[in-house]
């Protein structure tokens, strides 16, 4: 039979450890010692509240509550004095805007209620680069607007701290300092705003000594340098994964972080989804060190050490006929991938996450060989969102040390956090005469500055963006500035003596420079349309010359190999020239550099987490509470290490004779702390055994170890940015080839990992169903056998065996379809659900007790690559060995499946029958309704839920002081983000996914008012709407034309735990792997 694959959420479940069984057997992790306490006389007497006091309090509170209830509360209603024309109380307005923080770019729609932004949604304009998609970081960005830690006005250094000053006073003092400055530098993250660039130019006009340095914490300078060498222009091309049949990634986490992850995810989903009519999907190979989100989705994934990445690239180049000799690293696998690339005939692409120009240059050669340029890589549409120039940053430090620069203005950059130690920025900071920051928070750099002139948050600010050639975006404010902040550009202009307000300035720029390229003759039409749409695509500034087969004149000759084919030239219509000072590199130099790279015993990869990214938003509680897609850890950073290495290091104090199976009893509670030394920088962090991590390597995420927010955020993890190195080519290296790792220090670190929380029982095909593409092509039902039950009437389909009568669904029957093949596990839906449904943040301590409140979670299952059929076929293993091997954790390359799980809205719901007060029951539209005000908190429903999706409010999270700095709704400011259409639940009630019933009701009302049936797609849940890969589809099964009804008929459809007969309204589509072997078998 087919259902023999074992799935496991974490190592402790795999090994059926004591801790794990303790956790999943009882509903709540923590043991509550009620009886011991009451039965213990001395404990009772020691307690500050004895029995008599307790009864007194009880009596008093009863009386007080009764009296309070008698009093008529007076509710005030304060209408507008002058109601703004566009605001209708109770109706949401949407404003197109743009999110760009120097790392993530996304065109968004801001949902506002009564003038308050409450939710971010993707801009679904056809011109938007992100095509309506968002990710977790963009979804969460609305919360930071209401962060009470934001600076409330201009600050000036006084003593050890800062004190607020009037803007005029600050301006005067700053102007005086600037006038005396010997040399000024503006250090910013990538700026793609043409108006801002003009403002900086104007500032330069006034202060001639000014230089502008682009410094990105996560740099792509290696790519810029390689492309400068290949194409004669420092630029990053646009990738079109939706044109690819073979995608090979060398350490590029392109679904979560790399260049334009939201866009890539949507493109990726287009070539990965299969259906009855389209049974082809792209094949995805991943060579990587850590198990990244992208790697977890790869069909075939190969572990490489960072030091081997360049050699793999060389191997690939050799394999596709690049005329270099292949080093002996993973030669078999590399040769296979190279064959696959060649066979794709131009419909292939190689992506590389390394910041070493040598590797990137080799990758460029591979892409040329396989004909990717013009097909999957578009050099004629340069992407401008990453322009960091590492060489210029190093140069700046030199200038500061020599005294040539004595004044620095920091704009959206935080080098005190993110600069590598090797750069020596910290000491250089001390030598400056004047430091000015535009930071909105008192971050690491701002706290060292003499003046902090806080910029507006992006939802309060005007800006324009030019993320890609001919692509323009406007960023319009969705709320008036909450505090006395000021546009950074306006500050620059003020100091330069220009009093124009920033809005007018942008409008003028567009009037003077852009209208000519639009199809509008009239400026106000052009401007209003652009503000309304958020995005506009303009005609090229210069007539483009696309795909010039000849190399651009004067470009450095890089290709010394005779076999190299002519390069595709960059379009000469590029409107931004990226200022890049890193020089070029030749292929020969690259090849010889890469051939000799050697790594130490342990190597380190410094990476961005899917939730936290480069750390811009690490003070955001929604992102901190979102479990990392791979490790499922919240509120922390840690060292990821292969479990075999963990065993070798004898961590967790447990030794196993075989050296393979380590007991991970403690792993979900406390972690062993080790100290790690890289590039002369030492940190102490807990070790997380991570299957899939390359042996002999460790991974640490950036964005932690923050200072200056609040005690909760500041206490999280350590900052690893200083360990970033500078490589021989002058770019920052996020891989360290030799690090020293200590043995266990004896310290233990408590961890909040959710991987085995809310575990579904049964580790087989009832939860996850998967198959291979080859099988699917043969048989539509591959991997998805029909479930039958033995009854007295003989074998019966599960759906026909039931104890309950079915109910009518005369009007609608709402349902969710989740395509496991499209889901990449990124967590955007989890954060979107938080925002839409006012889900409480509970903090690390509560997460440790399995009390996270997320209405939807993404279960991440690992499984072994040993399967029964394969073993039987080959006959290599005995039965005992086979079963042992099937349970083998595959430390190196576990298969990963993500499964979003929310309330399944069972039509025969087990929770409904056990509620003593009928607080949960079923609607005639198929929804499992939860009525908070009726709930008395027995928690029977949660006990009886087979999917473990019900959440109990243990505390009043928005009021109880313990959740200060954790729950954003603790202060009035944080409460502004709450969705007024959804009740904020109080202590003692159960809650769960409502299938966004508020959106359903609103959509139905619109349809009723219009006198039509709701159109398919006009109502959507928050999770489905935010999904970058469209993995979640919401709709009405009674509407035969709906997408969801069509999917319901698909033979890939299955229900989780179908055999228990609860008839869920949420169903899944089998996962399909594009693998030749039977790893993902029937």
């Amino acid at each position, binding site marked *: 039979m087919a259902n023999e694959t074992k799935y496991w959420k974490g190592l402790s479940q795999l090994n059926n450890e004591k801790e794990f069984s303790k956790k999943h057997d009882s509903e709540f992790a923590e043991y509550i010692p009620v009886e011991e306490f009451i039965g213990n006389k001395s404990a009772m007497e020691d307690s500050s509240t004895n029995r008599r006091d307790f009864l007194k309090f009880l009596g008093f509170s009863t009386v007080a509550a009764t009296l309070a*209830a*008698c009093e*008529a*509360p*007076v*509710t*005030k*209603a*304060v*209408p*507008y*004095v*002058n*109601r703004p024309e566009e605001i*209708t*109380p*109770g*109706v949401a307005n949407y404003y197109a805007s743009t999110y760009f923080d120097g790392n993530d770019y996304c065109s968004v729609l801001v949902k506002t209620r009564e003038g308050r932004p409450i939710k971010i949604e993707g801009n679904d304009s056809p011109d938007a680069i992100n095509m309506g998609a968002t990710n977790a970081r963009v979804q969460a960005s609305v919360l930071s607007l209401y962060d009470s830690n934001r600076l409330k006005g201009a600050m000036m250094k006084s003593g050890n701290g800062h004190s607020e000053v009037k803007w005029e006073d600050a301006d005067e003092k700053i102007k005086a300092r600037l006038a005396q400055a010997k040399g000024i530098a503006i250090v910013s993250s990538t700026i793609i705003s043409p108006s801002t660039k003009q403002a900086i130019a104007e500032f330069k006009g006034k202060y001639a000594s000014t230089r502008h340095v682009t410094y990105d914490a996560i740099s792509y300078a290696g790519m810029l340098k390689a492309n400068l060498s290949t194409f004669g222009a420092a630029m990053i091309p646009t990738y079109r994964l939706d044109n690819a049949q073979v995608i090979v990634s060398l350490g590029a986490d392109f679904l979560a972080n790399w260049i334009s992850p939201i866009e890539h995810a949507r493109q990726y989903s287009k070539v990965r989804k299969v259906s009855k009519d389209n049974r082809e999907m792209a094949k995805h190979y991943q060579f990587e060190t850590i198990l990244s989100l992208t790697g977890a989705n790869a069909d075939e994934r190969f572990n490489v050490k960072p030091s081997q990445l360049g050699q793999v690239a060389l191997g690939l180049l050799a394999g596709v006929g690049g005329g270099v000799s292949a080093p002996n690293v993973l030669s078999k696998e590399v040769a296979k991938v190279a064959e696959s690339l060649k066979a794709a005939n131009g419909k292939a692409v190689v992506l590389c996450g390394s910041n070493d120009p040598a590797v990137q240059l080799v990758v460029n050669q591979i892409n040329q060989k396989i004909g990717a340029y013009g097909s999957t890589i578009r050099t004629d549409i340069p992407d401008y969102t990453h322009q960091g120039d590492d060489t210029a940053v190093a140069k700046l430090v030199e200038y500061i040390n020599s005294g040539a620069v004595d004044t620095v203005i920091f704009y959206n950059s935080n080098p005190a956090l993110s600069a590598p130690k090797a750069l020596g920025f910290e000491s250089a900071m001390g030598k400056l005469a004047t430091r000015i920051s535009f930071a909105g928070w008192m971050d690491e750099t701002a706290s060292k500055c003499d003046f902090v002139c806080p910029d507006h948050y992006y939802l309060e600010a005007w800006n324009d963006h030019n993320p890609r050639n001919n692509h323009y975006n406007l960023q319009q404010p969705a709320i008036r500035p909450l505090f006395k902040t000021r546009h950074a550009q306006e500050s620059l202009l003020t100091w330069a003596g220009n009093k124009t307000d920033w809005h007018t300035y942008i409008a003028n720029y567009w009037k003077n420079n852009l209208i000519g390229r639009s199809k509008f003759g009239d400026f106000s039409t052009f401007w209003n349309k652009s503000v309304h749409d958020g995005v506009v695509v303009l005609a090229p500034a210069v007539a483009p010359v696309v795909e010039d087969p000849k190399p651009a004149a004067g470009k450095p000759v890089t290709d010394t190999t005779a076999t190299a084919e002519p390069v595709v030239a960059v379009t000469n219509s590029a409107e931004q020239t990226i200022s890049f000072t890193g020089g070029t590199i030749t292929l020969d130099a690259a090849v010889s550099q890469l051939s000799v790279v050697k790594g130490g015993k342990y190597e380190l990869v410094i990476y961005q987490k899917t939730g936290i990214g480069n750390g811009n938003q690490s003070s955001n509680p929604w992102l901190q509470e979102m479990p990392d897609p791979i490790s499922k850890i919240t509120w922390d950073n840690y060292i990821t290490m292969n479990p075999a290495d963990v065993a070798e290091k004898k961590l967790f104090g447990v030794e196993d004779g075989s050296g393979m199976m380590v007991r991970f009893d403690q792993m979900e509670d406390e972690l062993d702390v080790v100290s790690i030394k890289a590039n002369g920088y030492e940190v102490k962090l807990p070790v997380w055994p991570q299957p899939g991590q390359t042996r002999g390597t460790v991974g640490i995420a950036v964005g932690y170890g923050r200072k200056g927010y609040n005690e909760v955020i500041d206490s999280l993890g350590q900052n690893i940015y200083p360990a970033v190195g500078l490589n021989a080519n002058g770019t920052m290296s996020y891989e360290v080839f030799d690090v020293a790792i200590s043995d266990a220090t004896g310290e233990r670190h408590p961890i909040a990992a959710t991987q085995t929380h809310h575990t579904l029982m049964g580790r087989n095909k009832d939860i996850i169903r998967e198959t291979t593409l080859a099988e699917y092509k043969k048989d539509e039902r591959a991997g998805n056998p029909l479930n039958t039950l033995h009854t007295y009437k003989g074998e019966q389909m599960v759906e026909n065996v039931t104890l309950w009568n079915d109910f009518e669904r*005369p*009007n609608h029957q709402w349902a969710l379809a989740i395509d496991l093949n499209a889901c990449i596990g990124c967590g955007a839906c989890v954060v979107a659900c938080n925002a839409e449904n006012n889900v409480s943040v509970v903090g690390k301590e509560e997460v440790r007790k399995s009390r996270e409140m997320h209405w939807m979670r993404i279960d991440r299952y690992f499984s072994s690559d040993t399967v029964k059929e394969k073993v039987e076929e080959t006959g290599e293993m005995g039965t005992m060995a086979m079963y042992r091997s099937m349970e083998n954790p595959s430390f190196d390359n576990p298969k990963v499946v993500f499964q979003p799980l929310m309330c399944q809205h069972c039509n025969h719901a087990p929770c409904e029958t056990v509620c003593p007060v009928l607080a949960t*029951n079923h*609607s*005639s*539209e198929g*929804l499992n*309704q*939860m*009525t*908070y*005000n*009726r709930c008395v908190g027995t928690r029977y429903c949660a006990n009886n839920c087979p999917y473990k999706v019900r959440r109990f409010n243990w505390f009043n999270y928005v009021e109880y002081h313990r959740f200060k700095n954790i729950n954003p709704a603790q202060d009035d400011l944080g409460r502004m983000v709450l969705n007024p*259409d*959804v*009740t*904020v639940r109080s202590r003692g009630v159960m809650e769960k996914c*409502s299938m966004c*019933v*508020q959106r359903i*009701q609103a959509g*139905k*009302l619109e*349809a*009723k*008012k*219009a*006198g*039509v*049936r709701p159109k398919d797609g006009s109502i959507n849940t928050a999770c489905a709407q935010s999904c970058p890969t469209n993995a979640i589809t919401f709709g009405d099964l009674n509407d035969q034309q709906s997408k969801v009804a069509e999917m319901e008929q698909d033979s890939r459809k299955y229900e989780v735990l179908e055999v228990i007969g609860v008839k869920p309204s949420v169903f899944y589509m089998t996962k399909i792997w594009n693998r030749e072997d039977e790893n993902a078998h029937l």
Partner: protein
Amino acid sequence: MKGLWHNVQSTRFVVLLSLAITLLVSSPISAQDGAAALDGKKLFKTNCASCHYASDKKGTGPGLKGVLGRIPDGDWKYRWVRNSQEVIKSGDAYANKIFKEFNNSVMTNFGSLSDAEIDAILTYADKGETPPPPPGGAVVTVGGEAKQEPVNNTFLLIIVLVLLIILIAVLRFAKINLKNAVNEKEGRPDEPALPFLDAARKWMNENKRIVAVIGLFLVGGLVVNGWYMLKDVGVYAHEEKPGEWKGYKPSQPINFSHKIHAGDNGIDCKYCHSTVEKSKTASIPSANVCMNCHKVISETANPGSKEEIAKIYEAVGFDPAANAYTKPQKPIRWNKVHVLPDHVYFSHQQHVVVGKQECETCHGNVKEMTVAEQQRPLTMGWCINCHRETNVAMEDNGYYTELHAKMKEKYKGQPITVSMVGGIECARCHY
């Protein structure tokens, strides 16, 4: 309603529906005076009074007393009323002068008024209207309190109770005196007069059964009454008499009378509560909506009206003397009358637009309310009852076509109520 015209006549009070002006005169048609004067006044109130006074006072436009003497002769007046901008553009000197004098405010076009109607209006306005008598004068206000307070039963009961207590005390006093007299006569020493409480205790000791029965009744009565009282906690209403609700009636920062606005002057509810068809909330009108009319109406015959209207001016920062918004704004903090708990999602547009319900169904007879009050209990039981009894407005709504056919078949011709289509399910209101 019978007082409406009296009100209008004596107070210059105006019905505000649109804007009008007229400046011309031809030969006065004295023959038509009787009917035309009445007609003219009505027309003036309907069309012109929101911008013009029929006196010397200036509104948005000029006061129209003596207008016939000022304006050019001929058909100028008709042309002006029907399309003043055209007259101005034609270069007419007087038209331009007036236009300029009143800050270039464009007068609404009244193309539908006939020559005779325009004449009637101007004839009425030309004569002018006697200004309203000062507040507190002889004129009896009609819009004020009309209902007589019901006789207070509680007060009568208390009087009876006090009388009974006095009677008991007197009788006891007499009894003690009589007993003492008897004792004296029989030569027995006076019984020490027990204090009242001791006496009562003694009596209770001797009559335990009676006490027990009385006690039972008392406790029972308390429990039953307490139970019913609890049901009203937080509801502000109780069912003393069926159909009549003793409602929550908070005082308001401005003594705004729905009776005057919606009742006497017949202003549509939706004119002020304008979002009722667009949003979940009907919305309390913003002060700028009040100013649509009260920019002109600063005072009426109702006592205190000037002070109350001045509160609107204070809120919007309006300076009536300068006729300009120059002062700081201060939002009005109303006391909310109809309060639903936070965990209830109630949508006005669902009920008014889709359900075609009248405002009165839930808000009672607002047109008769001098002070807004809650006349319906707004409890969940009350909502559910209504949903059980009210038919869904399914006809002519494409959303329901299919459902209606199914339901008709299922319920065999019974009317389809809201509850039959799931209208009493929890998640319709609670989420």
